[in-house]
């Protein structure tokens, strides 16, 4: 069951088509990576999901129903450009934002208490936001995004502005939220966190969806059937269907080579063949990294 589906979304700004026939399905309980270079249309799509703007064509379904105002309280949104009211007390501000999401003051207070204990930030309640450091403000904003326990959480570059310790804290929170059943849309340029967290990805480039599916399947799709081997000896006379792509000596007298085999060939045959010729120290498949996939799909290097 998909928590969110977009069907053939088109969004047109004056001269510029921000989204062109974009259809994505976001399965419930997953971390969904929404990837794409700058200006590809991610923010436009996120704004449509948040009902900040509406699509010119196409439909959005939330939990099987057409997306509407009644879903606002079930979505949490952390925009890339963070912002809070600077002159407002942390506690008042969070209560306000929670009430806008439809919580009563009582409920909001109860939930916030848990978060303040969890993050050990109880003393911040009566502080003005402007007196907090940037990282602290980010934490507050993260709490503001998730405190109403939304079914769908949209995080746009959630780790920017955090030091590694707090980034880890947030990462654990994200995983825990998924554990509890929330679905997370995770938009980022940092491929290593996509690698680490996402179950599913969609890649948007130049207003069009170019890639979509479970991370594993996509990696499978981008597999080149190449393997790397570290060995001693002379690597010659292998099965002619294998192609040695490159060889380079390592410092300790070993060599490293990348070998491509035909798609229908068995890996074990390659291993056998290698053992017959050289002394193997290590062997492995070259699985494409998200970075490789991104570059291949977009034709450019992801920029942060």
């Amino acid at each position, binding site marked *: 069951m998909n928590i969110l589906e977009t069907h053939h979304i088109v969004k047109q700004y004056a001269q510029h088509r921000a989204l062109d026939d974009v259809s994505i399905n976001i399965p419930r309980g997953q971390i969904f990576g929404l990837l794409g270079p700058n200006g590809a249309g991610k923010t436009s799509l996120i704004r449509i999901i948040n009902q900040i703007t509406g699509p010119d064509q196409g439909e959005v379904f939330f939990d099987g129903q057409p997306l509407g105002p009644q879903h606002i309280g079930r979505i949490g949104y952390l925009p890339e*450009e963070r*912002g809070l009211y600077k002159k*407002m007390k942390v506690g008042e501000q969070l209560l306000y934002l929670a009430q806008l999401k439809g919580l009563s003051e009582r409920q909001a207070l109860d939930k916030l208490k848990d978060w303040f204990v969890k993050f050990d930030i109880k003393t911040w309640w009566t502080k003005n936001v402007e007196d907090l450091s940037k990282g602290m403000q980010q934490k507050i904003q993260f709490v*503001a995004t998730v405190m109403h326990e939304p079914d769908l959480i949209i995080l746009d570059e959630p780790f920017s502005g955090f030091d590694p310790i707090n980034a880890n804290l947030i990462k654990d929170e994200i995983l825990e939220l998924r554990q509890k059943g929330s679905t997370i849309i995770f938009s980022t340029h940092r491929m290593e966190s996509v690698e680490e967290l996402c179950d599913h990805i969609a890649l948007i480039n130049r207003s069009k969806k170019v890639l979509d599916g479970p991370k594993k399947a996509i990696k499978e799709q981008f597999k080149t059937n190449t393997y790397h081997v570290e060995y001693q000896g002379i690597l010659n006379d292998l099965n002619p269907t294998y192609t040695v792509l490159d060889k380079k000596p390592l410092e300790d007298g070993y060599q490293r080579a990348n070998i491509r085999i035909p798609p229908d060939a068995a890996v074990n045959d390659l291993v056998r063949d290698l053992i017959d010729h050289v002394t193997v120290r290590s062997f492995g498949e070259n699985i494409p990294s998200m970075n490789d996939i991104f570059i291949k799909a977009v034709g450019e290097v992801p920029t942060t």
Partner: protein
Amino acid sequence: MRTIFLILKREYLVRVKKKSFLIMTFVTPLLVSCLWLVPIFFAMRDIDQKKVEVIDENGKFARTFKNTSQLVFTPVKLPVELAKKDFAQSGYDVLVHIPKDILENPKSLKIYAEKNVSLEVKNGIENAVEQEIENIRLLEAGIDRKVLESTKANVSSDTYSLSEEGEKDSSSGAATGIGYFCAFVIYMAIFIYGVQVMRGVMEEKTNRIVEVIISSVKPFQLMAGKITGVALVGLTQFMLWILLTFGMSSVLSSFLGQRVGPQNRVEMMTQPPAQNQTAPAEKPKSEQQNNPVNSVLKAISTLDIPLIIGCFLIYFIGGYLIYSALFAAVGSAVDSDTDVQQFMFPVTMPLVLSFIMAQFVIREPDGAVAFWMSMIPFTSPIIMMVRIPFGVPFWEIAASVVALIIGFLGTAWLAARIYRVGILMYGKKPSYKELAKWLFYKV
């Protein structure tokens, strides 16, 4: 509705809790009450008696001067030169010299004092002498003062406005004052609170919190909540100003009163110091002239106060709503203070223009300019308020209010359409052409 209320509550509380709000709320009434109490305080200090020595070489002015609470006259028989020489030691504050030929040469009256004599004292003495000279001359001509008095016609006009309800006493002076005052208050309030709305919108936009907020509420709700919240702040502030000004004034004046003594205070309040009882015959006239407080109060009581207050509230709120919607649109369209000017000018122009025109309208409250400007919603809050104390036909007010409401709805629609696009637009400063395009964006 709930979300609008939440937004309204936040906008209201954030502003009301600000230190600057508290300071403004308490300092302004204090200043205002000081402003009108200080002159009274100083006037009361002047009340300490002045001793006046009178050298009456002519000999006919013995009974001219009557002692008042401020001036005590003592006839002295001394040569002028000697009196002048000894003046410093004499213990008198003022020396009045009436030369022998005063009747032929009335300009020869001389008043000496260590410091400058106050205008009131000078006028008082001059009037008294003048009166006496007149009396003497009349007497010489064989005319009794009383006879003359009975021939005098005391003309001072009362103006009446004729309407269906019949003759009504009106005072154009009071109408002018009240009209101008109301117009000024509306003008200031629109500016002060309209700009607050604009700043609030800009704060949200530059802080980027707006994106979080409008993922929860509609942009229109945010704008409406903000505008009404600030409106309530304005009303609160005005209410407090009125209450506090009255409160502080009465506290301060009773404080002053204790120091000066109740009798003097009563005297001070009821009769301005200019009034010397030197000319009892002229009293009716002078009372009317010299008691402006009473006459203003009387004139005000002839005006239709409930109508004025009702209209004031309508035009105050209506004018504020129209302009604050526009201010909100301006705030949403710009990124920084420096870009504000370009858009502020066209928005505030009708407001400034109507305030300038108010002084012409006040002279001709029934002219064509006055009529049309009080119909156009952008100028009517000020121009109509100027006209209302002079009496405006009911249908004109009704038409103007309807126009105001329609104007507000139109402006709000326009502003909301710019606002919803503007708050999410960053970077370049939009041109007017672009703003016009925003109106027709599908969001």
